[in-house]
């Protein structure tokens, strides 16, 4: 066990290094000169060279990479000239909002997928099944930023059911004291139910927009797995013991159907991460995603580079976690 954890860790480390190197390379072969961006188009060659010197751009690329990673690990993520702030500070400010949105989106995707997959496979009901499959195909085929727009048009603009873009909380309310820095949780901790409800309302539309793609993916996977597992003889044997349909499904079919889904959770995380860049922009959500879009438009690449590396690290970390979890859940892998 110890051995396998160690080997997995070293594998993850290698993947992170590889990924960050690729990210670094791509951002450094960029035609524009980062120093030129800082000093501005009107600066003289001398100023430019001085700036390049300061930034270490004359060094060989691997030295630059080494230096960048060393700084990165020690907390120096570079300086965002667009926002006039260190990149790390910006991340710290905006990360909680993104995480909260991601969590709610995942909860939505997961719950909706489980319920609909169960409904689709219950008995032999072709219409229900076809509906769920259609939903899944639409979920996977809809551009998240477009869905966000539709949701806003319908539920905010036309029906007025949910608040519009631009905030996590109505201006009339004061944010609860920061504990976890996740608004809904902090509101609960502070016991302010009204604040919680308001923050939750603000979360509904963006969470659905962000969760739709993972939902489509999950429901499709779960439905197929449930159908497969249901054809396994062991379900018949369970039923022959007298266990009812739902008990057999929840106790035996679902856990087995979840196993292959677990492997896909890396993919789902990636969808959430990529989607947040798009959805946050539409809702003007004060998270990392909208920061990244703004930085791209401002050509503020220090932020983008940090985001890419953080994404890769998180992604590798999640995948490693899933591997471990798989070993815990599936006795056959434990060996």
């Amino acid at each position: 066990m110890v051995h396998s954890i160690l080997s997995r860790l070293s594998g993850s480390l290698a993947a992170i290094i590889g990924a960050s190197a690729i990210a670094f390379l791509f951002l450094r072969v960029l035609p524009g000169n980062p120093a030129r961006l800082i000093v501005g188009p009107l600066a003289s060659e001398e100023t430019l060279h001085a700036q390049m010197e300061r930034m270490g751009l004359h060094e060989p690329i691997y030295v630059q990479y080494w230096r960048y990673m060393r700084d990165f690990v020690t907390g120096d993520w570079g300086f965002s000239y667009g926002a006039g702030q260190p990149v790390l500070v910006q991340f710290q400010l905006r990360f909680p909002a993104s995480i909260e949105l991601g969590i709610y989106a995942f909860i939505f995707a997961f719950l909706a997928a489980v319920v609909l997959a169960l409904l689709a496979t219950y008995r032999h009901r072709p219409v229900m099944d076809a509906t769920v499959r259609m939903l899944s195909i639409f979920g996977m085929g809809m551009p998240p930023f477009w869905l966000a727009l539709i949701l806003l048009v319908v539920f905010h603009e036309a029906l007025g059911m949910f608040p519009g873009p631009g905030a996590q909380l109505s201006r009339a309310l004061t944010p609860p004291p920061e504990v976890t820095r996740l608004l809904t949780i902090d509101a609960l901790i502070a016991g302010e139910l009204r604040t919680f409800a308001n923050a939750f309302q603000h979360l509904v539309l963006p969470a659905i927009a962000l969760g739709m793609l993972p939902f489509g993916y999950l429901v499709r996977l779960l439905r197929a797995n449930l159908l497969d597992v249901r054809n396994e003889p062991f379900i018949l044997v369970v039923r022959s013991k007298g266990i009812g349909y739902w008990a057999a499904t929840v106790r035996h079919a679902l856990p087995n159907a979840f196993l292959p889904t677990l492997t896909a959770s890396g993919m789902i995380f990636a969808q959430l991460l990529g989607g947040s860049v798009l959805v946050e922009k539409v809702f003007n959500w004060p998270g990392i995603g909208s920061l990244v879009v703004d930085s791209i438009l401002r050509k503020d690449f220090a932020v983008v580079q940090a985001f890419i590396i953080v994404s890769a690290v998180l992604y590798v970390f999640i995948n490693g976690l899933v591997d471990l979890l798989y070993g815990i859940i599936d006795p056959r892998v434990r060996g």
Partner: protein
Amino acid sequence: MLRSNFDLSLSLFVLLLLAVLALLGPVFWPVDPLAISLRETLQAPSLAHPMGTDHIGRDIFARFNYGAKISLTVGIVVVVTGAVVGGAIGLVSGIVGGLLDNALMRFMDAILAFPPLILAMAVTVGLGGGLETAALGIMLTSVPYYARLIRSDVIRIRRLPFVEAAVASGAGITRIIVRHIIPHTVSTLLVQAAALFGYSVLALAALGFVGLGTQVPTPEWGVMITEGLQYALTGQWWIGVFPGFGLLAAVAATSILADKARDLLDPRGQYTQL
């Protein structure tokens, strides 16, 4: 049986319709997608403008057709090049094995260690934006998916009894690959290609949306949605909604097609007994 054919024909029809709009749009709707008309800004859909006009009076329908051309072209190009490159890597990796296999797969892993959209962003940022770079970035992120799938397929097929039967009757490696392995990976490749077509089209739109793909004023669907964003909440919904439907239709149709292809291409499927 009936229903499944309905699915199939509907999605074929949708794809065909989009293709017709993309290719023949300029013929039967000869309106310049870039022509600005300040007298006709922000008009709702009507006979003169089936999808309305945008804030500077450009005809959305003409722009939609142009966007279809961009999306479908990029989708096809990305899928074909990705499938060829990825399929080749997978085939070589699965057949040669050993050190080369290991090296190729580690490289694929490194690419996979990125969330795909983020990597496409990185590449596009790095190479300076634009349609071609965006397509290249998307293609690059799709290669490992083909490569890994085809590799594992090749390894699985190599061990199947009918391949062993061919080896036992003296077939050489070339014959085994060409006659027995490749035909059996084609269905996998096709299904994966259809799935990745959807991804490519969506990714291109996403890159356009964040300002990395095609540049304004080129009417790409993602860019059009971005432009429509600020008018959506003031009542001019048509600017951003129609291109979204285009994306949804293209992606959903290919994904239904992929499912059907998977069923039809499995020779066992047709003879499944009770």
